């Protein structure tokens, strides 16, 4: 067999703009620089926070700082340990996410598969608008409108299910509990999870859904056997993004939570809890230079924690949308 050297097999050429002048090189260089500025910003944040908090980490010890549970600026030497706040952040985010996931998936499912087109359009707009409610407005609403209502719910929960440890409350105070903060966080992250889930649902291959329906499946079996397995990855990523947002929430929680440096492991109706971000903003005003270092260190912990969760989430979302390459 001979190969015709003069006429090689035509390969479909991929057209790409390659820089072929100085101006072009400048153009692509600027684009590249801007793209890498994202990496630079993340590194700068880490570097500056670490430089301000290095002394705290050194004096308190990294393990003690993260897992100890005393924070007292009046002691000498000053004692700063973060665990009640870190655990509080995790607890509140978990409550918020657990409550938000069914609601968000319901909304996304309703918009994509149940509602008539016109209703779906309006609902999409409403969800997007809700995602833009500033957290301080939610904090205001939480403090002056929602707290009393939610405290009433907590009382009923405690009366009915008080024998289950997580609904225990030995005081008579149901205000400013992790449960209420979790509900406020729910209101905040439902739109975020819902809009990502809706996007994933809307990009699904309609043919496999129609095939399932044509084979006699009903809505429930189609959701369980077709939609969720196909869109699952993206939905999980959306949930993690919501979780990351919940962990970093600051001012919305500040007004509805009693920040106490005493680890509240699971009694979500008790009037004590913690949140790193809210603690930073509430202590910042009257902190001395040494305590500011501690707050910076708390910022480092929060930043690393959310960055890991968010990176994981966006990796999963990206994997669930291979057509985006």
């Amino acid at each position: 067999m001979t190969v015709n050297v003069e006429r090689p097999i035509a390969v479909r050429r991929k057209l790409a703009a390659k820089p072929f002048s100085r101006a072009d090189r400048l153009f692509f260089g600027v684009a590249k620089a801007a793209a890498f500025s994202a990496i630079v910003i993340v590194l700068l944040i880490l570097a500056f926070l670490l430089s301000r908090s290095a002394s705290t980490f050194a004096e308190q010890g990294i393990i003690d700082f993260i897992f100890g549970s005393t924070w007292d600026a009046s002691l000498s030497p000053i004692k700063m340990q973060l665990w009640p706040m870190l655990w509080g952040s995790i607890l509140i985010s978990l409550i918020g996410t657990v409550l938000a996931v069914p609601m968000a998936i319901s909304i996304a499912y309703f918009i994509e598969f149940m509602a008539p087109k016109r209703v779906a359009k309006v609902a999409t707009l409403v969800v997007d608008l809700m995602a833009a409610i500033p957290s301080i407005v939610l904090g205001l609403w939480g403090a002056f409108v929602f707290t009393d209502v939610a405290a009433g719910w907590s009382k009923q929960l405690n009366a009915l299910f008080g024998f289950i440890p997580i609904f225990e409350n030995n005081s008579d105070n149901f205000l400013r509990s992790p449960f209420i903060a979790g509900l406020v966080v729910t209101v905040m992250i439902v739109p975020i999870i819902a809009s990502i889930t809706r996007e994933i649902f809307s990009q699904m291959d309609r043919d496999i859904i129609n095939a399932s329906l044509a084979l006699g499946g009903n809505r429930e079996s189609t959701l369980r056997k077709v939609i969720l397995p196909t869109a699952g990855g993206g939905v999980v990523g959306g949930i993690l993004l919501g979780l990351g947002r919940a962990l970093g929430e600051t001012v919305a929680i500040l007004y509805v939570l009693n920040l106490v440096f005493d680890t509240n492991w699971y009694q979500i109706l008790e009037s004590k809890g913690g949140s790193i971000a809210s603690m930073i903003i509430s202590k910042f005003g009257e902190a001395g230079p040494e305590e500011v270092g501690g707050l910076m260190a708390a910022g480092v912990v929060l930043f690393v924690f959310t960055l890991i969760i968010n990176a994981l989430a966006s990796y999963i979302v990206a994997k669930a949308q291979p057509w985006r390459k």
Partner: protein
Amino acid sequence: MEKIIDLSPVARPVGRESAPWSRIQLKTRVAVAFASVVPAILGLTVLLLTGIDFMAMLFAVFLPIQVIAAALVGVLVYGRRGVLEGLLVVVTIFCASFIVVLLGSVLWSVIANGSQALSWQFIGQNNYYIKPNTSLEYGGVGHAIIGSLLIVGTSTLVTVPMGLATAVYLTETQGKTKGLIRTLLQAMSGLPSVVSGLFIYAAFIASGITTYAGWTGSLALIPLMLPTVARVSEEALRLVPQELRNGALALGAPAWRAFMLVTLPAARSGMVTAVLLGIARVIGETAPLVLTTFAADRTNLNLFGGAMASLPTYLFGFISMGFDESIQRAWGAALVIMILVAILFTTARLASRTRTTARK
């Protein structure tokens, strides 16, 4: 007589015949109507007769009856498998309406409480000489609106070119690190706002380069705004047909001219959306501004001189003061922020609508 033979492939049914599954039997319609109305009526009756708590009624009376009713309809339509179907419909609609009620309550309370504080003088005046319990006839958020516009405007001026250039890198080049950048941008969109504030505080204020000033606030907003702008403008550039670019390049245009004269104008309305959504993302950010611009009670037009007020920090300050009047002011400021966000969103919607009609 000649017989006419239809040579076209099997004719597709038209009109109602084309979608037999969309015809729903009368029996089903009646059943669904019953299942939607009867539990609500029963629940309301119980509520009015016994006067029990609304939430208790909802969970103890309405929901069980509604679930049973939906399951019955499911059985009627699909047979035994229909039970879960009915359950799914009830749970979906219940969860969706629960959160819509909560979000509606947020909007309603902001509008109802805020409109009492709102007046032309509240929008126009600044806060000099105002004590927490001064009556609402004096003072307002004028200085905070100006401060917000200046701070957010400055960050917009910096962030939009950066975001656009990032989007160019993501759509117009063959860079190998595109996946990494995209993942990182998405992860940055979840950056806790307080961390961004701490970062700028550590870099410029704690190190003694400056005291509290407007421009530090603008810097603190950049990391929060960049991911939104970059992602939305990436979507906008992606929507531009590849043929347009290829056409420009084939005519001999260098890449930068092809982008500036062909791709960018074609994506113009999408870019407007990107800018507006980016602004809407940061206009209510509180924590970074509390840490970097502090608060002021009079108008400050100089970004580089002294503390500067903004709407979120105004709101933040007045919530914690605890007087009726100060809380009224907080609601008023919340309403002003929400109005600004709504205006930005509506404009963004209109801009993206012109894009879709232009393509037709």
